[in-house]
């Protein structure tokens, strides 16, 4: 392809090819402080124009690579950075086999991982981003958490946090401006701005952590905590996993062990401050 770049996030090593320079220049700036990628890529991403003239005329970025979704709609070139991030996520969701992939955020403290799973809008990304800014925690990822099937360890996938809508103001108020990508307005998911994790998250991005607590947050309701039993947790995590069924027996064994050893809670919280306080309290109780 005309332009290419290599990016390393956790165990993934992306080779990204593009018909345009701009999205890759934005990626390079966003990932400038990440450890450099060595060796060969294990996932390939294409950002391409479906017809040659669409490189110039109303340029539309199609996403593809090792794995593609046939009907994925293209994005305008002004959202090329978002297209690149979506394409990288797509390769992980469809192609990664080394670990069980959970659609969940995670933070680490003292070698133990707090995993947060939930739908888009549940607040799992914002909570993880906020915790990641406090001195005690390391951000492991806002989108995917990888579970090593044999050991049950959680592995980090600390791509830049994809902040949406209100969360953007919440984080720009706390974090230095040089850690943000460009503001992307009116995307299919609303306003989006990427935030580079703190240096500790990048330095330790290949260090595993032992899962100690799983939360299913829900933003916008009064504080409530509800215990989730192993059977329900199993079902919820299979739904949160993009590759559970493809892992076969090792995936089943790993998940079975996890739901029997790691406590899980569904929590509601009205705002970020009370959410953070609740998480800290539940973390202390879980480790007690």
């Amino acid at each position, binding site marked *: 392809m005309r332009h290419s770049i290599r990016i390393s996030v956790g165990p993934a090593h992306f080779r990204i090819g593009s018909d345009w320079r701009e999205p890759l220049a934005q990626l390079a700036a966003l990932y400038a402080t990440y450890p450099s990628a060595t*060796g060969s890529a294990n996932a*390939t991403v*294409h950002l391409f124009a479906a017809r040659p003239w669409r490189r110039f005329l109303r340029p539309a970025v199609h996403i593809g690579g*090792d794995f593609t979704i046939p009907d994925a709609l293209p994005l305008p070139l002004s959202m090329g950075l978002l297209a690149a991030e979506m394409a990288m996520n797509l390769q992980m969701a469809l192609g990664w086999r*080394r670990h069980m992939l959970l659609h969940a955020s995670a933070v680490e403290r003292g070698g133990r991982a707090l995993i947060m799973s939930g739908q888009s809008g549940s607040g799992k990304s914002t909570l993880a981003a906020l915790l990641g800014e406090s001195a005690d925690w390391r951000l492991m990822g806002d989108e995917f958490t990888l579970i090593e099937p044999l050991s049950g360890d959680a592995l980090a996938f600390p791509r830049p946090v994809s902040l949406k809508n209100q969360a953007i103001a919440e984080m720009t108020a706390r974090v230095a401006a040089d850690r943000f990508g460009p503001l992307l307005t009116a995307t299919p998911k609303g306003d989006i701005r990427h935030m580079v994790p703190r240096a500790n998250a990048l330095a330790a991005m290949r260090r595993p952590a032992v899962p100690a607590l799983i939360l299913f947050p829900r933003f916008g309701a009064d504080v409530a905590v509800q215990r989730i039993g192993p059977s329900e947790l199993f079902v919820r995590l299979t739904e949160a996993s993009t590759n559970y069924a*493809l892992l*076969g*027996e*090792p995936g089943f064994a790993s998940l079975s062990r996890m739901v029997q050893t790691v406590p899980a809670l569904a929590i509601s919280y009205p705002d970020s401050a009370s959410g953070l306080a609740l998480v800290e309290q539940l973390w202390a109780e879980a480790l007690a």
Partner: protein
Amino acid sequence: MSAVWTLIDLLAGRRDPAALNAREWEGVISVARAEVLAATLAERLADAALPGDIAALFADLRCAAKVQQRQALWEAEMARRALEPAGVRFVLLKGTAYAAAELPCAAGRQIGDLDIMVARDDLDRAEAALLAAGWEWVKADPYDDAYYRTHMHELPPLIHQDRDRMIDVHHTILPLTHRAKPDAAGMLARATEILPGTGRWRGGAVTEGAGAEEFNASTMRDADSDPSDPCGATSPFRGGFLRLSPADMIIHCAAHCMADGDLAGGLRNLWDFHLLAEHAERSSVQAAAERHGLGPAVARAVRLADALYGERSLTLTTADRLFLRALTARDDWGRPTRPFTRLAFYIRSHWLRMPPLMLARHLWVKWRRGSNGP
């Protein structure tokens, strides 16, 4: 050298994997994924000294393929439980047959749908039994449905409502409208039970001729016997399925890649062919192919497999070179190239499949509906 030829040379054993640099590996892997040969390459190079990141990726691919094959064999078992009580005799075809028979080409081979063959007289009973056991029609379109039933070599595809897996029920190996008319009844009559394997995937060569009674099958029991295998993918296969005779299997493989379709997946299909036919007695397979009207298809597959993966001792025709151009039309990112060559082979695939007037009518209906179909 282009990535696609590096991949071919690695499979053929003509290239030393230790001599590849990191960038070359990336191209090889992208092309191998696009040609669904990535896990095959990973199995082929399982004992080679490889860079750490490549070795780790190949271990992932081998695991994923073993899990997938296990699921494919389970699907065959599900079909048996549906068809056996109805008294329908069926033969496993393609990938599932290779995996069940533990043939060398099964190592790392991707398996999508379950392909089986039944006698044409058994089609109605097979269909009823599968529908009763939870399979459902994929296509509701009456034109497509009628087209399949009148002109194709298989029932319209069925998907199981719970497991979401597709089954293709064939009653012969080529569309009925195809110029070649293989002897499906003879193939079914010669089909034999798959015996549990006696050799091994790796290192175990197929020594007996395919014209002979039985393949010296190799096993998947590398995984069975090793409790530390991270894939944990033991085979659910306990014997008892039917497969085509070795010669018919080779002929079907050639028909599938040379006489039907537009060469999509051709490198993989010719790899299958190469390993199936490698030690077969060429003249007896060729004679059998002539009886099915598939002599030219098998002869071409022999020449192309030789040019790609073999000794390169056979003389290629001009048309063969065009086939090779189409088969190797990928760039180092795994993307298709040579659009005109590809288009030509797409047109050829329809030309072979049906007489011109019928083709015109079919394309007209398809164009008006704007849908994809057979």
